[in-house]
């Protein structure tokens, strides 16, 4: 007889007064003493008492001090109980493993879910506080349920019959009705697009099915089609006069730069899941950076988790083995008063903690090292947090096949399809409001990294055996976009009955559209050997159809054809957008002189959350797995000094070359001048890559744009300026863009209709080849007696600097100016590094030379004695092409010859102070300021 049990497993984990959980509660004004967290297990199956006991001992109870009790029998004196669990259908790896393992033991368990029991003690706690604690701190409604006391089990209920396929009436209806369809289905299509659908189906003389409408909406979404970056743009000045036209931002700026440079090391740019560039004579590397902003705002853990999963999948999708991930995160202030939060917005601390846990969970479990990134805090990210995730992979030269052939089987590898993840592409192409969490909850998923790890093993083995003719990943849009893209030139016949599902009852369009993470689609002349490999590595695989040659995408479910779409219309039929951009007016002003205490200001800068040590975060990421890491996020004498860039030797390569990565991002300058900002972050990315050993003669760039609503001319004006700067800087640095991603509509619309757009943000990742890994500079200064040299100008810009951020005011003055001449200094620095003349180097970025010198000295646990003018622009200015360099006295002559623009400014000491001209800081004060957890 089938029975059901609720069990609590101990010993629990006790969150004491110092814990993040308790302090998160305090932020909401809820004072509790302790929270103890237990595993809560719901089971269903035909188990007798003996069998339940056997199961508990084998699968639930830990040796030494573990126990397991029926949930209703377990009492907690002087405490209150909250229980939380996943919503039915949300990925529950632990529950699924419990069912599998029970079967392995011969115990008939039919369903299992794993939740949490939280036992809360407090001096006094009102019921309303307890509810708020459950809602705001212990659970997230997007993926979880909660209950005071016992939670009902959340098994996936037996679903009704598969819903029938419906048609949307577009023939003969007016514009209002067309727009109403787009709104009701949350398609994100404008009137012109709906009209294009209408006229296409008018020619066919029939209405489209729901699956067809959804397929078109996903394919034409901003997320998939990059409509804004392909739009025809009229550029106006701030008086509204037309001054220019742009025939597509991608074509006129980003891709144009790449075409003009025509770099011999670029193997593939912009056309596939990721860019591919040459690494050495035998191997290429694949590069990609993605954004996952909308989902992370709603469900930070799942959003960031699947953000990493998605970008790793992009790399697998070009037949490369993922070898490194990066993450750049932008959050609102973590100490924000909860009363200032708009309804429907999670607190920045909640978002931060969830995102960081999500990034760490995926990277750690899939076993790809997280080698670098950045975390920025600014009020402009409170309602629109940003999550950028990058991945780099390695593949043997010319090993990525890209031509599916008619007759090839369509093979799907990986996870089964569920209702989660439906509509991800259209959701992420729209603005967000207070209600977005409720209506778009199904667009957010939890990842399952161990399945993706298995996919890597299977795909690499299949690639080496030459078993497939094309491959892509299932991203947003699920099978509709992956098969749709692969069938672009061919056509395909798909039988949805062959697609593995997590549970019955999915409508045809849901199965076809569901993103479901951890899936790859391959075209294979003979699928047998691939399916055998999948079984060997414990990964599910199935054949779901065939590529055809009639140019039609055809999808059947049962006897019904639910999609019958002309591929040409699907991929080329989207009307081109015509947009207006208004150029930002950049005002120049004299800087107002400011009186400040240099020592106190330097310490304040070091303590600013954007600049302060990120050790508490970065330590939760594995940066060592694969054994190739040369420059890790933290280094120095005690392993706690921040590095500028990252370097790693791809596993399986000769070890003679390393890959060097630099990242640039800035939240402040874009508000003044997006052109200057873009140039600034490209220079920063290049500097960081060079300190990590890259040769500036063969850099490749990735762009990630995160902006607001591009139909607003001011916003598009900023984007246009940033793209123009990308083009201009790429040509100067001879560094082509090979891949990129734009995330638009990062706008929160307040209940009163006020739009709250994100800070204009561009992330640049620069990747290069390090040909002398043995000569890499160390992180942090190395030896007392060594000389300190400054490369580049003494003074730099103060407007848009972090000095003004900590002063809390814009004092005017010059913004960092694009400086084409910086290239020469980057080349000289790289030559000096390659020659082994640089003991260590650091990049003056946020906070300028004062902050860089303090961080650098602390990392090496040595003093610094620097002659610097007592001028804010020298101490705190931020600008391009500058380096602080440590050189051994014996190498100084050779260094000065290679870097003629360098100037000696001081030396490393064995003391414990940093002298900045007339000012002196103790290393203790630096450590205290920089290492206080933000």
């Amino acid at each position, binding site marked *: 007889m089938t029975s059901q049990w609720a069990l609590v497993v101990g010993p629990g*984990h006790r*969150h004491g007064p110092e*814990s993040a959980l308790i302090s998160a509660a305090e932020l909401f004004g809820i004072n509790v003493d302790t929270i103890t967290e237990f595993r809560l297990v719901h089971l269903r199956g035909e188990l007798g008492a003996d069998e339940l006991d056997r199961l508990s001992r*084998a*699968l*639930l109870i*830990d*040796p*030494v*001090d*573990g126990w397991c009790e029926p949930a209703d029998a377990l009492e907690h004196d002087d405490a209150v109980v909250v229980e939380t669990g996943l919503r039915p259908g949300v990925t529950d*790896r*632990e529950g*699924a*493993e*419990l069912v599998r*393992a029970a079967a*392995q*033991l011969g115990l008939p368990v039919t369903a299992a879910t794993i939740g949490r029991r939280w036992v809360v003690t407090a001096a006094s706690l009102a019921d309303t506080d307890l509810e708020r604690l459950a809602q705001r701190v212990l659970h997230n409604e997007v993926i979880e349920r909660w209950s005071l006391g016992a939670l009902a089990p959340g098994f996936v209920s037996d679903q009704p019959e598969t819903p029938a396929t419906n048609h949307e009436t577009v023939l003969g209806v007016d514009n209002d009705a067309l727009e109403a369809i787009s709104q009701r289905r949350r398609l994100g299509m404008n009137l012109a697009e709906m009209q294009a659908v209408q006229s296409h189906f008018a020619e066919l003389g029939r209405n489209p099915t729901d699956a067809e409408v959804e397929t078109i909406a996903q394919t034409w979404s901003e997320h998939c089609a990059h409509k804004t970056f392909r739009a025809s743009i009229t550029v106006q000045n701030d008086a509204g006069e037309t001054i220019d036209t742009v025939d597509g931002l991608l074509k006129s700026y980003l891709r144009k730069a790449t075409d003009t440079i025509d770099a011999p090391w670029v193997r593939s740019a912009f056309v596939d899941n990721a860019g591919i560039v040459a690494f050495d004579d035998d191997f290429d590397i694949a590069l990609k950076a993605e954004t996952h902003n909308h989902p992370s705002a709603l469900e930070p853990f799942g959003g960031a988790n699947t953000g990493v999963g998605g970008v790793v999948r992009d790399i697998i999708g070009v037949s490369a083995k993922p070898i490194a991930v990066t993450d750049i995160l932008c959050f609102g202030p973590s100490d924000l008063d909860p009363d200032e939060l708009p309804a429907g917005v999670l607190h920045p601390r909640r978002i931060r903690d969830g995102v960081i846990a999500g990034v*760490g969970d995926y990277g*750690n*479990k*899939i*076993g790809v090292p997280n080698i670098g990134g950045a975390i920025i805090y600014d009020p402009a990210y409170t309602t629109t947090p940003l999550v950028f995730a990058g991945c780099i992979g390695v593949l043997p030269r010319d090993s990525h096949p890209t031509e599916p052939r008619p007759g090839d089987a369509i093979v799907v590898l990986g996870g089964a399809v569920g209702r989660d993840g439906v509509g991800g592409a259209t959701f992420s192409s729209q603005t967000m409001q207070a209600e977005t969490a409720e209506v778009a909850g199904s667009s957010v998923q939890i990842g*399952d*990294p*161990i*399945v993706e*790890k*298995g996919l890597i*093993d299977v795909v690499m083995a299949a690639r080496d055996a030459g078993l497939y003719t094309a491959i892509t990943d299932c991203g947003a849009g699920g099978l509709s976009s992956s098969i749709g893209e692969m069938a672009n030139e061919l056509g395909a016949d798909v039988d949805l009955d062959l697609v593995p599902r997590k549970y019955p009852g999915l409508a045809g369009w849901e199965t076809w559209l569901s993103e479901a993470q951890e899936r790859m689609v391959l075209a294979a002349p003979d699928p047998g050997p691939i399916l055998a490999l999948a*079984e*060997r*590595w*414990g*990964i599910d695989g199935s054949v779901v159809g065939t590529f055809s040659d009639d140019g039609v995408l055809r999808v059947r479910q049962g006897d019904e054809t639910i999609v019958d779409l002309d591929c040409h219309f699907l991929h080329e039929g989207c009307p081109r957008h015509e947009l207006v951009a208004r150029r930002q007016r950049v005002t120049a002003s004299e800087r107002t002189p400011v009186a400040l205490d240099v020592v106190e200001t330097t310490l304040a800068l070091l303590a600013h959350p954007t600049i302060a040590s990120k050790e508490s975060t970065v*330590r*939760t*990421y*594995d*940066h*060592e*797995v*694969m*054994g190739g*890491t*040369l420059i*890790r996020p933290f*280094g120095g*004498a005690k*392993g706690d000094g921040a590095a500028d860039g990252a370097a790693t*030797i791809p*596993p399986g390569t000769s070890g003679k070359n390393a890959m060097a990565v630099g990242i640039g991002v800035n939240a402040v300058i874009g508000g003044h001048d997006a052109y200057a900002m873009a140039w600034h972050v490209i220079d920063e990315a290049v500097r960081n890559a060079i300190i990590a050993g890259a040769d500036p003669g063969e850099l490749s760039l990735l762009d990630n744009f995160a902006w607001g609503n591009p139909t607003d001319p001011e916003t598009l004006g900023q984007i246009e300026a940033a793209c123009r700067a990308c083009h201009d800087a790429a040509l100067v640095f001879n560094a082509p863009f090979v891949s990129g991603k734009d995330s638009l509509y990062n706008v929160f619309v307040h209940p009163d209709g006020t739009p709250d757009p994100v800070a204009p943000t561009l992330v640049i990742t620069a990747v290069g080849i390090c040909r002398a*890994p*043995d000569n890499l500079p*160390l992180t942090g200064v*190395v030896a007392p007696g060594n000389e300190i040299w400054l490369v580049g100008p003494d003074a730099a810009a103060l407007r848009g600097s972090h000095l003004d951020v900590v002063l809390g005011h814009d004092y005017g003055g010059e913004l960092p100016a694009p400086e084409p001449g910086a290239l020469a200094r980057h080349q000289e620095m790289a030559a000096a590094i390659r020659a082994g003349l640089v003991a260590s180097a650091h990049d003056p970025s946020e906070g300028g030379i004062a902050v860089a010198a303090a961080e650098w000295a602390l990392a090496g646990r040595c003093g610094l004695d620097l002659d610097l003018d007592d001028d804010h622009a020298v101490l705190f200015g931020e600008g391009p092409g500058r380096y602080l360099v440590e050189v051994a006295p014996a190498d100084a002559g050779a260094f000065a010859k290679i870097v003629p623009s360098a100037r000696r400014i001081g030396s490393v000491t064995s003391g414990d102070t940093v002298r900045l001209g007339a000012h002196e800081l103790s290393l203790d004060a630096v450590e205290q300021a920089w290492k206080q957890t933000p």
Partner: protein
Amino acid sequence: MTAPRVLIPVALGTNRDGDLAEAFAAAGAAPERVPLQALRAGEARLSDFQILAVPGGFSYGDALGAGRLLGLDLVGWFGEQLHEAHQNEVPMIGICNGFQALVRAGLLPGDQPAVLADNDHGRFECRWVELAPEPGNDSIWLSGLDEPIRCPIAHGEGRFVAEALADVEARNGVAFRYAQDGQRAHGEYPANPNGSAGDVAGVTDPTGRVLGLMPHPENHVFERQDILRGRRTGGQALGLFASAVAAVR
């Protein structure tokens, strides 16, 4: 002389298999990564190999406690092969998740129940640590190590809890302790990163043939991997792998 064959079993979610293979290859062995499904299907047997090395990672996503389900697989599917190998004094090593699995399978510490519990601070943590080989432990795995090694940890469940640690100590079963500049960590964080009693980072079974440890010596077999590259010399862990390889040659 042919290189000894090392079996590196791979479960769903195992991820430091490549790292471990690289370390054994550097030590002169012939490592082979074999999925558990293939071992189950009889593609290879443990008796075809001279060393068993269970790698780190997140087997089965750490569901129901790190290493539990892999431990269950080892006992349920390969119990007899393991018993036979143990009888034949085949050296075995479990690192991180592999250690957790060997503890779950009852092979370590081998004389009493034990568990690798949540780190004291409750988080996954990656950092470099110093490991002092225990002088009294005469396991073949330690025979080539005469100085502390440096290597990273990367785990969330690494606090070693044994029912009677004193008994393990008494038989010189502790293999490695967390240390700082050659001295015991004495529970001080971060030198002892997870709060293990007695600073225990690794243990051997009563025969000395089976070693388990939480840190990742396989990630410091080359000088270039050292976090203190250019500041200190030594500290590599290649000797650990070379010791076992030498013992079976």
